[in-house]
Each structure stands twice: as structure tokens, then as C-alpha cells.
């Protein structure tokens, strides 16, 4: 079976969405990534990625939760779809297989 391809940043974004659960929208995702990974990411990058993931069918979105702070505009909340979950699982599996197949001495070298 052909596996879906997920880029590294895509994976991070999807995981963040999954972590944030019901509260995942552009702002929170951006802030969460910054806090969790410590790297500075642009909102535009996150937004574009979210859009791409939705297009691929890994994420679904719904509108809601307007606040005055946002000038009365609604948020676009993202949730991970079944296909998204499967993709994450695949990625994780591939990674784990790769880790498992590392020779022990090399493994020791990496983990210290």
C-alpha cells in the first residue's frame, strides 16, 4: 500500500493540531509550535500548511468562535481526520521501524 507523504513541518503541524484537540486554529497552532519546539515560525507558513493539509484531506475545518479581539471574525478550527490519523500513524511506524533497525552501537552513539 502506498503511504501518504508527510513533510516534517506538516507532521509537526498535524501533531500540534491533534494536541490542541478542540482548540486548534491558526493562532493557537502557531503559538503552540513556538512554545513546544522553540523555533520561530511565521503565521503565514502555518496557515499555508494548514490549508495544504486540509486540501490533502488530513485535516477538516469548521468556522466558529468569533471574539471581539478578532474584530468579530470567526476562527477556523481544525481537527485531524481519519486519513490524517492514519498518515500520522504511518509516519510514526516508519520512523519506529527505522529506529529499530539501527545497529546497537550506532544507537548508543546517538542517544549517548
Amino acid at each position, binding site marked *: 500500500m502506498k503511504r501518504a507523504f508527510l513533510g516534517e513541518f506538516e507532521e509537526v503541524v498535524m501533531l500540534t493540531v491533534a494536541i490542541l484537540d478542540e482548540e486548534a486554529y491558526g493562532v493557537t497552532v502557531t503559538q503552540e509550535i513556538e512554545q513546544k519546539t522553540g523555533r520561530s515560525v511565521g503565521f503565514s507558513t502555518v496557515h499555508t500548511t494548514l*490549508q495544504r493539509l486540509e486540501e490533502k484531506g488530513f485535516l477538516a475545518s469548521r468556522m466558529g468562535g468569533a471574539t471581539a479581539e478578532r474584530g468579530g471574525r470567526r476562527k*477556523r478550527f481544525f481537527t485531524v481526520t481519519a486519513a490524517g490519523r492514519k498518515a500520522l500513524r504511518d509516519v510514526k511506524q516508519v520512523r519506529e521501524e527505522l529506529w529499530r533497525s539501527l545497529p546497537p552501537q550506532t544507537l548508543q552513539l546517538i542517544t549517548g
Partner: protein
Amino acid sequence: MPNATRPPRWATRLLSWWSHPDTREDVQGDLLELYHYWVMTVGKRRADWRYCLNVLKLLRPLAKSKQAREYPPPFLLSPDMLRNYFTIAWRTLAHNKVYSLINVVGLSIGLAAAMLIMLYTKDEVSYDRFHANNPHIYRITNREFNPAGVQERVGTNTGYFQGPRFMAGVPEILSFVRYREQRLDMKRGNEVTSQPVFEADSNIFSVFSFPLLSGNPKTALKAPNSVVVSEDVAQREFGTTDVLGKIIYLKDSDYEDNSQFSPYIITGVSAKCPQNSSIKFDILKQLIVPQEAMADNNNWFNFFLNTFVLLNPNANLGKVEKQMNRIYVADARDAIKTMAQQFGMKNRMEYMLQPFTDMHLNKDLPPDNGLVDRSNPMYSYILTGIALFILIIACINFVNLTVARSLKRAKEIGIRKVVGGGRSQLTFQFLGESFLLCFAAFVFAVLLVLLVLPTFNQLANKALALSYLFDVKLVAGYIGLFLATGLLAGFYPALVLSSYDPVQTLYSRFKLSGRNYLQKSLVVLQFAIASFLIIGTLTIYSQFEYLTNKDLGYDDRHVIDVEKSRLNRNELKLLRDELLKNPNIVGVTPKNGGRWGTIAKINGETQQNFAYETIDPNFLPLFKIPIVQGRNFSADLRTDSTQAVLVNETFVKKAGWKNPIGQVVDFWYNENEKYRVVGVVKDHHYASLSEEIGPQLFTMKPTNPYGKFFVKIKPGTETASLRHLEKTFKRLFPIMPYSYTFLDESNRSKYEAEAKWKQIMLFGAILTIFISCIGLFGLATLSAERRTKEIGIRKVLGASVSSLVQLLSSDFLKLVGFSFVFAFPAAWYAIDAWLQNYPYRIDISAWTFVVAAVMAIAIALLTVSFQSIRAALSNPIKSLRTE
């Protein structure tokens, strides 16, 4: 939100324009939220920076909404919506009958006026354009320069010479046609009538496109005794148009005593000359040029007909004119010299070519001498102006009323928007309604035009027919007019109405934006135009009164004017004796026919032009023209007819004589005839009042023929006197045509043009005022309706009816008053310019303006107070009871 925490405006705006439409809302919101977060964490400057950077990265200027593709908006013209539009339009119209009526009636009057004027101007500019040889037909005209090089005169006439000589020398001139009018006597049985008979060169039918119903156009006028008649004349004289080969009798010439009636064979029957033709003939015969006339080179200066030339299509006009003048200078050299010696003519003459189609509306070079229907282009301008005014005012009504009334439709617009009506749909709906009304108005307008066309023809001196309406260009023009009016009248309301905010209109009582300057300025414009026209009409009226009632300086009452060409002295004596046998006839006096003018030397060498009148001693007493100095001619003094002249005061003034009696007038070119002035006649208006009184000289010279005589009768004896006059005339001059006019009537008829324009202006003014008033009426109605509650409360609190009327009317009256500020200067300027046309004219009086102002205010007050009083009288319980 404080300004300090707002992101840069330009970036926000960029985002709202060009971000991806599908995610615009959440992106805008996210960025705003993030911006506040950044301001708190990293400060405003960096927050701004990040915000802008992100915005720029998120711009997708070319992106299209994907949702839109999945859910297309409903078809703009779906049948259901269309049906709904029609229903709603019909209901609103039916619900507001006054408003709809005002709109339709006003617009249809405006459109009808515009249509009529289009018809009129189309006819005016289409004159003479039907000839196949256009634009290569020209008329030979000329101008004179005095020795100082200043242009002194332009002339439209030519003589026998110009046509043939120019054609011989200029290869570009393909052919020429000389054309003139004569009045000839025509005999049928024993009856003699004076007929306008036209003479032309025989190639007239190849140069001009006048189709012949029968006969060969190439040969019709080839023979000297052939004649072409129009179908009208054929019908009248023979009762059929099949008249080829039949014979009519015409007198050869009007000028010679011994001329006889000779037979002419009809060789062609022409269709009636088109309405828009400057050449209109009923009887056309060949122009016969006497051999001796062509031999006499002095005939270069004998101008009495029109010459037309047909140029080669490739000809260069300037070059042709230059060649013509070269030929003239060379060929007429001797004649020019003779003229200079004999008559002291020092002016240099130059020939020009005038396009044939240019004649009709040309003021300086008008169609004359047999060519008919000269027209002043100013009339076209005035008419077009009036029609435009009326149309503009009707459109203003439309806009004003629709916008004012839209208040009531604000809820409808709100609902439409809430259930998904787009702005374009609303614009379409309102424009559509405006077009619907316009169409109704258009239909009415066409009916109106059909109805008033006969009256209009009479007024404008035209023969416009219904069939004229169905010309391709005109129809296109009407459709254009329809579209323009519909757009003009509907565009603004449609824009304003579709922009209403649904929340506002549905949430609270909607207020029409503030002071409503547009509506006010439109009302001002309307009344400015209306008062402008009132002033114009008043002025034309008083100028007309002035012209028709001004003392002419002579008594024209009870005077009959009878034409009799070549009335000699013996005939006159016989005629007078016979006529005076009847006690009703007070006096008889002759005069030369037509208007004569000539030149003589005074004070030695000074040349003086003057009107040259041949009269007898009875003339001045009969017309009660006073002698200021000296004496009248005397029948007892034989030398009076050969040595004495009378002059008028203007003549004396021009000559600079301190002591006029005994001064010499030298007709040097007539074998040095010299006359002495024996009396000075008081100035009187011998011509129409549109001419200044010029120098006038009276003579009794025996060789000057009389051409008419005047008969003064006792008042109230018209019938008996006329019977006696006619009987005597027919007995004495059996083969002369008899026709008479009353002098005061014919004097009045000189102002027919003014009378017509007076009527047209009056109609225009009345229409304008009427349409303005119904517009004002509509506005007053709406404003009273809007203020029903206010009026109710005021009444409950004790306001009197008069104070309420004042409250409701004063707004509009202020606008009307304000309109004078614009109307008066414009009107003053316009009537001043118009009055300059008249040497004898009224002064512009302040009263005209006062009267116009009072009229405008009174009319407006009447219109508005009707509604105001009704509103003020209404029962406050009714207006306050319901919400």
C-alpha cells in the same frame, strides 16, 4: 479599541482586497489576534513588522473562491426573480398613484418635447441633402472689399455671365445652372392670375435630383417654349397629371408694356419638390438669355439670379475659387474700369463658392431670389435648449421623487438584502423599474407627438409628417434618447437605494441621509430654469407688443395696398378719378413697386446711399407724414417732378446739412441730373422695425414707373370700398392680376416670426413650469407624509394651522428664492443678447424680473400649500394613533 494597538491600515486593507477569498475571514481574525499578542510580547514596532510581513506573504491576488464554483449565485435574470420584480414594480406604482402619474406624465412631456425638437432639427439639417450630386454642388457667391481692404458686403446673387464664363475657364466646373424667380401672368380662359414662374438652364434636372413623373429630364427644357409643371399645378389646372403636350399661356415678361401671352407646351411633370428643399418650383421654364445681354460686358455687374455649379469630385475648392477670380479680373477688366468711372465703384469684388447644403441655415448667405425657406439657426438652438430644459426637469423630478420615496422602500431593500439579494441585483431591479416607467412614458410621448404635430407644424412653419418619425436615424435617436433618459433618471436612485445598509433599515427607523443636498440643488436647478423661461417669455412678449404697437410715424389704418406693375401717369389719373367717384374713398396715391435704393452725390463729391421712393404730391398727406421743414411736392409746379426732391431727417443728419432746403443732390451717372431739396420729411418706419430708419429720398421723376397704389378709405366701409375698387380695377386693367392687402395687416404680418416664437416660448415656459410644479407637488406630498407624526404632535401641543403651513412650505420657498440667484444673471445675459437683434427695442426693466419672481414664488406656493394645508388640517388623532 485604542488606536495604538491597531495594525497598519494599509496592510489590513491589502489583506481585505487580495487575500484568498475562501479563508479571508479567519486569516483576518487570526492575524488581528496574533497582532495583539505580539504587541504584548515583543512591542508595537515589531508587531507591526510581523503583521505586515505575514500579510504580504498571504496575499493571493489571483485566487478565486472555490466555493463559488461549487455553489454558483442564482442567475441574475432568473424568470422567478423577474416575475417578482414586475409584481413589486406594478404594486408600488399602483400603490402610489400620484407619484407614478407625476413621473410618467412629466417624463412623457419631456420626451415628447425632445422628440419634436429632434424632428425639427433633423428637418433643418436635412435641407437640400437629397440631391445625388451633393456635396459637389456649390452656389457662386461674392463679397466686396473697400479700398482699405475691409469686407463691406457679401452677396448671394450673380448674373448671366458668371456661370458660363467660369465654366469655360475652369475645367473642374462640370456644369452650371442659373435659376431665378419671376412673377408672370398666366391666362386660363379669361382669367388672369399672377404666378411665380421659375426659370433655369435646361440641365437643371441633371445637376439636381428632381424626379420627373413624366417627360424626359434630358430634353424637357431644351426648347424655349417648353415648360415643366409640378403635379400640383397639373392637377389644379387640368385635373390630371397626364398633361404632356398640353398648353399653358404665360406672358413673356412683366417688364415690357407690349408683352403678349404666348403658348408654352408642357414637356414634363415633376413630383412635388420635397419639403426640405430650398428650390421649390411649380412652373419651370427655360432661362432665355438674350444675345445682346451676353455681348455687353457690363453685365458682369448685373446681379439678379442664383448660379449653381457642379464641381468635379476631386476638385480643390480653394484652387477653383482662385481660378474663378483670375478669370473675372481678366475678362471683366473693361467693365470694372467702366464701373469705376461711371459709378465711382472703387470696391474690389471677389467670388466664392458656397456648398449648396450650407444655404438653408446660413444667416449671411441665405437662400433668396427664388430660393425659399431661409432659416435662422438660432431658432434651432432655442428650441433645442427648451426641449433639453424640459427633459432635464422631468428627469430631475424622476430622480427626486424616486429617492425621496425610497424611504418607504428601505424595508423592502433591507429584506431583499437579508435574504441574499446582492447589490447588483438591487441595482438591476431599480434600473429596471426606471426603464419600465420610462417605457410607459415613451409610449405616451409618441402618442403625444402624434397629437400635437399639426399644431407644432403651424407654429414652427413646417410640414413635418408622421412618416418622418419612422426614419432609421430618427428611430435610433429615439431609442438612444429612451436609453439615456432611463439611465439618467434611474441611475442615481438605483445606486443610492442599493447601498442602504440592511441592519439600519430593519433595526431602527431609517433616516434619509442628512440634509439631502442633491434633492435641494435639483429643485433649485428646476426653478432656475423655470424662472429663466418666464423672464424670456415676458421679454419676448413685451418686445412683440412694442414692435406691433410702436408708432410707425405714419398712419397705416384704412389703407388698401394694391399691386399694379407699370402704372403710368395717365392710368393713375384715370384710376384716381374713377375711384374718387365713390364717396367712401378718401384718397389715392401711387408709389414705386418693391424697394428701390440708389446712390447720389451730395456736398459736391460725397456719395450717399439712400432709399429711393417715387411718389406723388398726395403721398405724404395721405399717410399723415409731417413735413418738418420746407414744403411738400406740389401738383401745380411742373418743375417739382424734374428738379425737386424731398429727403427725410436721417438723410439730413447723414449729409450733415445745417440748412437742408436748397441743397443739391447730384445723380451724376444719369447725365448729371441735379435736384434741389425743397422739403424735409419727418422720419418714419418705412421698413420693418427690425431695420433702422435709413436715409430716404422722395422724387416724382416722370420716367420712374409706379408699381402700386394706396387707397385710403373711410373707416367701416371696407366691403363697399373693396367692391368698388375691384370693379374699377378690372374695368381699367382687364388683363392685369388683381390683389390687395390692408396695409396695417401686412405691417403686422412682418412680425409673424416674432409672434410664432412668442407662442413657442410661451408653450415652453408653461410646460417647464408645469413639470417643475408637479415635481414640487410630489416632493411636498412626500415630505408632508414623512412628517405626519411631527405635525400631529405639534397640533396637539397647540400649533395653529397657519404656522404649520408656513413650516411645511418655507423650506421649498427658500429653494425657489435661492434659484433666482442663478436664473436672473443668466436670463439678463440671454435677453440682452436677444434684444441686440432689434434696432428698436424695449429696455430691460427690473419689473420683468420682479414679475417673474413673484410668479415663480406664487406658483410654487400654490403647489406646495395645497399639500401643506391638507397636512396641517388633518386630525392629529389619526396620525398619532398608530405606530
